[in-house]
């Protein structure tokens, strides 16, 4: 397994509000994440987990410091380039799945491929079916999201995150809305992805163990208080 530096955060801070009532969500965070790592970012509500995730996905820009992912200084990209870059490099899994309700499951995956265009047109359907097979919901391919269970929707969201074969998967509370049995299925899917060489970063407020994740980063008041 190659552990080259994939993500590099240098003195990243993020503040909100005017100077008089400024809230510092992140305070000078330094973080290096290598390829193939399986990381949990944990912390209580308000610790800065979601802000850090937004930094890692390019959804938000730091107030100071820099975020370099896969050789690209993310916060220098404009909105349009950022969208394409994100599609190629990062697969995002949301807590509430966020599938497009008017498209079927397979169409949700195909749309992500259409946006980025790295997968050749002729291979897209085959790849989408392969991803649905991988996540165990091929039989649901032509159904609309509203007809699927929460677990199935989250598996569809993971399949969509993998659509363009990005090296990094970022998941925001991916099991927060699921029962324990489904949670286990999702966790095993992530483990499988790590074994396949993907870098998986999971943000969670749940208790996690080292046996499950390769690395656990704990945040408190916008700072990394533990990284083991």
């Amino acid at each position, binding site marked *: 397994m190659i552990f080259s530096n994939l993500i590099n955060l240098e003195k990243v801070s993020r503040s909100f509000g005017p100077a008089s009532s400024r809230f510092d969500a992140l305070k000078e965070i330094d973080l290096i994440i290598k390829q193939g790592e399986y990381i949990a970012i944990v912390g209580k509500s308000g610790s800065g987990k979601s802000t850090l995730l*937004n930094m890692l*996905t390019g*959804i*938000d820009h730091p107030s100071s410091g820099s975020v370099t992912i896969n050789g690209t200084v993310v916060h220098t990209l404009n*909105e*349009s380039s950022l*969208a*394409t870059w*994100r*599609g*190629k490099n990062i697969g*995002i899994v*949301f807590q509430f799945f*966020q599938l*497009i*309700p*008017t*498209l079927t499951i397979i*169409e949700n995956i*195909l*749309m*992500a491929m*259409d*946006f*980025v265009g790295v997968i050749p047109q002729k291979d897209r359907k085959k790849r989408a079916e392969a991803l649905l097979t991988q996540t165990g919901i091929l039989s649901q391919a032509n159904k609309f999201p509203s007809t699927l269970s929460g677990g199935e929707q989250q598996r569809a969201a993971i399949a*969509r*995150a993998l*659509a*363009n074969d990005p090296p990094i998967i970022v998941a925001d509370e991916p099991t927060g809305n699921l029962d324990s049995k489904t949670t286990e299925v999702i966790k095993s899917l992530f483990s499988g992805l790590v074994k396949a060489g993907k870098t998986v970063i999971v943000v969670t407020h749940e208790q996690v163990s080292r046996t499950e994740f390769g690395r656990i980063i704990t945040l408190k008041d916008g700072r990394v208080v533990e990284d083991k």
Partner: protein
Amino acid sequence: MNMVVKKAWGDLKVNLGRTMLVIFALSIGLWGVGSIIVSNSILTHDLRKNFLDTVPPQAILSSKDFYKVDINEIRKMPNIECAEYRDLSLLRIEVNPDEWIPLWLFGVENFNQFNMAKVYPQKGLQTPSPGTLLIERDGLLISHLIIGSRARIRAGKNKFKVLISGINFDPAQAPATQDHFIYAYTDKKTYSAISGKSHDQRLIVRFKEVRSKKEVEYATDKLILGLKSKKISVNSINIPKFNEHPHQWQLNTLLFIVGVIGLLAFIMGAVLVSQLMSAILASQVRQIGILKAIGGSKRKIFHIYLFMLLVFGVVSGMIAIPLALSTGYAFSRFVAQIINFDILTTTLPLRIYVYLTAASIFLPILLSLPIILKGLNGSVLEALNDYGVGRSSLKKKTDTVSKTRSTGIFTLALRNTMRKKTRLAITVISMALGVAIFSTGFNVRQSIYDLLSNFRDGLRYDVQVVINEGIDREAFLLPFKNIDNIKTIEAWNGGRGELQSQISKTTDGIGIISLPAETKLLKLNIIEGRMLRKSPETEILINQQARELMHNPKVGDTLVLNLKDKAIKTKLVGITEEFEKSKIYIDEAQYDALVNPKHLVNSLMFVAKDDRYDKVIELKKSIERAVEASDLNVIYVMSQAERVKVIYDHLQIVLATILFLAMLVLIVSALGMTSATSINIMERTREIGIMRAIGATPKMIYRIFILEGMILSTVSVFLGIVLAWPLSIVASYFFGNLMLGDQAVLRYAFSLEGFWVTLIATTIFGYFASLIPARKAIMVSTRTALSYE
């Protein structure tokens, strides 16, 4: 199918109701504007073509001396394109038992070869057999006359029964239905036999290379000089408006109204579409965030909404364009029937289809573009965190109403109304505009009614009898001596005069009314200067149409008039407003002293003792019977009520169109309000769930939304009625100009009837605009509402 297309298509399908509403709104707007584009193209082209294809005369000269010269000599004169005799006499014809109206009898040189002033055969004979007439087709609508019937005609004391041998069509004449005339055409011999006049006394002429009325006037002056050299003295000259149908003003007025109101309806439809697009985007902010998060660039996401707009445009176009073509043609046929011309357009120019297609496809895109770009410009973070109304904005917005001390549902409804200020402003403005236009329609109608009413009030006689030429007063009065129900009779005189131009005595003939300066039978609406008085100077008073013809002289100016070949210096003392042809009023004592030494009169004004409508009509019939038994050469006998009806018939089409279109605008505005309320409710579905969860009954929620709708419509109605005031002034000004001439003023009038209709209609519309979405809101279950994103 491309995923972008599929996503857009899915969004359209999932909100089918909203999609249908957008298509409906856009279709209505497009239908309105499309009908206008189509009818405008057809009417403008066809009225002009109908008129110009007749090769209308540019000048009409009357003289008793034309026999001195061969017509071919006139035709050979420089600048003459063509010339022929087309005699005309004003007679009377019985159109229904005991109902006589003016007859314009034309004597035609050759029915088989018209070089100008063409008339077209329609039925029966093309050339009337000797002793018979052809009747212009529009006259059939106001008479019992048909081919084969014998028309009763009076020419002075002579009475005839003349066979109608055919029907023809003369698109160059003012419509008989509106002017209450019959036009008839016969050969020269029959013309002379019926009218008792010699033929070849009225010359119609067209000039070479003239491009304006001024050039025609100049050419006519030269022609008159040429005729003078041949010892021909011209009695009267009439130069009609250059290349313009006599009822072009009516068409212009209609097209103006239809154009303005239709355009407003379209703008409102477009505002509605952009509002709905804004709502679609508002409900999809999070989706846009997700699309961006999974790699969708702005351009790609823009394509989704572009496709949606294209679908709206294409579907609306498919519905509205055929409808617009059909109603455009139908409206054109309706107008053509009223103005009496044929619709000639069978294929519209390609540019019309291009306009219609462009309007359906590009306008929704252009109008929604700023909203889409605004929707796409938000950051992913903002999009993902969107929960409808932002807390900060809500705080700021509710602060503005926090000072209101009311409590409960009203406060909540008021605050909710104020939540989205831009949408509130657009909704209120478009609804207020609809109310204002609707109200303006009524106010303009009231202004026209007031004008007619003033006109009617000004005419304080009940029946008028006009004869062809002046006779002795006593001889004129004699036939009417034994008629009951006559309070007083006043005798006036009149004729035609010309304004002296710089070159010679040309330009248009203007009606001269000579009446006692102190008459009580006419109360003119003086808009400038004063009424006639006994004066050492020759005073004249003119109406605004005469002012326009006389190139806008000012009160106090000295004008030279040609009256019966005498050039007379007159002083302009006042200007009156009338819906009439150009007229000059002059004191009878001065008129008689100048040109009427025998004190002849040609009009009798009868005032009825009992002036109820049926009694006046009875009086008129008695007068008609007396006329029939007499030798009088009567042009017309008209009751004041009929006179007002003639004017009203001219305006009816305009008034009906104003109200119909104003109603259309109001409906489109109400649709806009319904959509805005629907959007507000849709955006607050989750909030409805929360309210339901904490104990609000469906009835309470229903009341909140109804109240919100009523607040919106109350504010809109108030603003609309206020806005209607300046709008009515401007509209009255425009209509006045179009209908009555450049200098005319159609005064602003407030229509109380219109106010109540507007208030009731908009309150009902406002109520239903809230009712439908409010009902929809309470149908949603608490669970569905709470899970709505």
